[in-house]
């Protein structure tokens, strides 16, 4: 359980469902991160919410298409890594063909190798639109 808790949303595989275990926070303190975290919470990434990765782009499975509530959003890796999840379904969706499974496993980083807190990847969010 504790190991699963540290998965980031980006580490879920296609068809895999999870529950948000830690919504985005503003720990890092930068204004850009704060705004991104705020927007993620606004669109529904709050503690306990169920999420599901529907598709991943090529290469490296970045960005991902993730369903939260009744809505689907495309998120880049740096955004998805702000959300920590506990996986609910342990394996890829049963409807997934075997060869796709292998392809995805090869493309996506293995959860074991990724420690979201250590990746340090941050989205550079611009200061609020300055030319409006």
């Amino acid at each position, binding site marked *: 359980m504790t190991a699963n808790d540290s998965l980031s949303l980006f580490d879920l595989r296609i068809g895999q469902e999870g529950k948000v275990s830690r919504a985005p926070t503003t720990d890092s303190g930068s204004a850009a991160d704060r705004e991104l975290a705020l927007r993620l919470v606004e669109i529904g990434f709050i503690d306990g919410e169920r999420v599901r990765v*529907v598709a991943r782009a*090529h290469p490296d499975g970045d960005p991902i298409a993730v369903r939260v509530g009744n*809505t689907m959003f495309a998120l880049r890796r740096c955004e998805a890594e702000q959300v920590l999840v506990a996986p609910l379904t342990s394996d890829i969706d049963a409807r997934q063909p075997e060869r796709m499974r292998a392809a995805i496993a090869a493309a996506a980083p293995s959860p074991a190798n990724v420690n979201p807190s250590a990746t340090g990847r941050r989205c550079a969010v611009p200061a609020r639109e300055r030319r409006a």
Partner: protein
Amino acid sequence: MSSATLALRLALLGNPNCGKTALFNLLTGSRQKVANYPGVTVDRKEGQFTTPSGKHFRVLDLPGAYSLNAASADEQITREVVLGTLAGEERPDLIVCVSDATNLKLNLRLVLEVRRLGLPMVLALNMTDLAKKRGIEIDLPALQRELGMPVVETVAVQRGGASALIARLEAALPAERPPATGWPSPDIAEVSATQREVRRILAASVREPALDTRVDERIDRVVLHPVWGMLILAATLFLMFQAVFSWASLPMEWIKAAVGALGSLLGERLPDGILRSLLVDGVVAGVGSVLIFLPQILILFFFILALEDSGYLPRAAFLLDRLMGKVGLSGRSFIPLLSSFACAIPGILAARTVANWRDRLATIMIAPLMTCSARLPVYALIIGAFIPDTTVAGVFNLQGLVLFFLYVVGVVSALAVAGVLKLTLSRGAQHPLLLELPAYRWPHARNLMIGLLERARIFVTRVGSIILALMVILWFLSSFPAPPADASGPAIQYSYAGMLGRALEVVFAPIGFNWQISIALVPGMAAREVAVGALGTVYALSAAGNDVSEQLAPMLAADWSLATAYALLAWYVYSPQCLSTLAVVRRETNSWRYPLLMAGYLFALAYAAAFVTYRVALLVTGG
């Protein structure tokens, strides 16, 4: 004046994809006015309607927003209008919050946020037909109680779908407008608390079966697939460009026949002289040759609007995100760039949804490389004259293939320019994408019609005003001074336009342009498609007979070498000469630097490409 006779100001506010604009169309019909907010170029859509009892409303369609905590220029406008802090814009008397009834979990948070402002509010639950179909039961009285505001059901895509809202508006008599207020931006704890409140309200008032996403996800498994999805995207765009050529040919024949008939009629009825020349050579030949492209432009817009309505466009953005990331853009740039295929101006304006300033600037700078519909008349004329109308591989129209190729060259050049910009505008970490992929929907005929009529109106107005005026000026320059009595060549050679063309020919001869083309490029500065009308006028005036107005293409085929035709096509892939685009870039970037840079790089690329094309074509064709 009593307050009853004054129009009440009503603002529609809601999340993106909630059907807000469809509701706006339903309420106001054709009584709409699209303008800009003072000082900024965010579209300001206002319309009017009168209730059966005679109450008059002015309706403002605010840009879609997830939150008052604005992340883009669009959302900032929405916030400032509802707060009453936008200079030159009065605060609305009444807010109609539009929410997608099938997605209240996402939509209600904004409603709660706006409620805090204390303005009179009505909540319109839109798409209730879809909600009922999905078995979502909404307890209206309970929801009204929880929210403390009137709640009505609407179906924006159905005739009469706003009757409950209108009935409610008859009753609502808003109090005095509260004064403009500040708005402390909330912290995450407050936003989370609002989210919990949304869930509590939903639990108390809505019974919703688990959303069946099987169909959508089955589609998405293919459409968002790295390989199949890309193939579908390529096929969609390809079909779009094929359709522009093959579907349009019949209506284009009709317009051509009508223009030709009008020209001959005028030619027969009017006495020989200046007036006949002005009407037949200037107005009919010039304007008619541009008007003929209306069907193609409408087909192109039909595809763009339908793809937008169906929810496919953001998915294309998802697919292309990494590719575009390589040249320093984000998938978000895809939608403004696709709009630029219709016209660079709405494309450049749509770039304001790209939150990152550098991404946005790069998007703006390459938008003119997307082949806009104003270039279509030029392409269509030259392709029609020089490329045989044959079928390749059994199904593809060769002319359509060449057109597709020209579009591809534009796109590839745009990516290359973006790549160069990436090197100069250094950027740091990865930028966010955060793009909603809305549920698939069938495009709605009425909204498509309103969108297409708007486009047709803009095009015909342009043809009737700026293009007509330029045609008359060009006719004057091409007809005067009259040639000397002993002149041997066509009259236009001795006119002002002839002199100007000969002067410009010095510049353009190395890339294979004759003086007629050189003349046509000058009025083409104001609007690219005018170049076609200008060629029509120039050739009509330089021809011996009077029956040439509808025969431009065969005349060009006889007069130009193949190398010249290809060089002109290459020139028009880059063609910098659109003054309105440059003016919009000036406004959007708030500086002369970028429009000048844009004009400079486009001119250099156009000249270089036409030069290379001309020289290579000469070698190949043995000229």
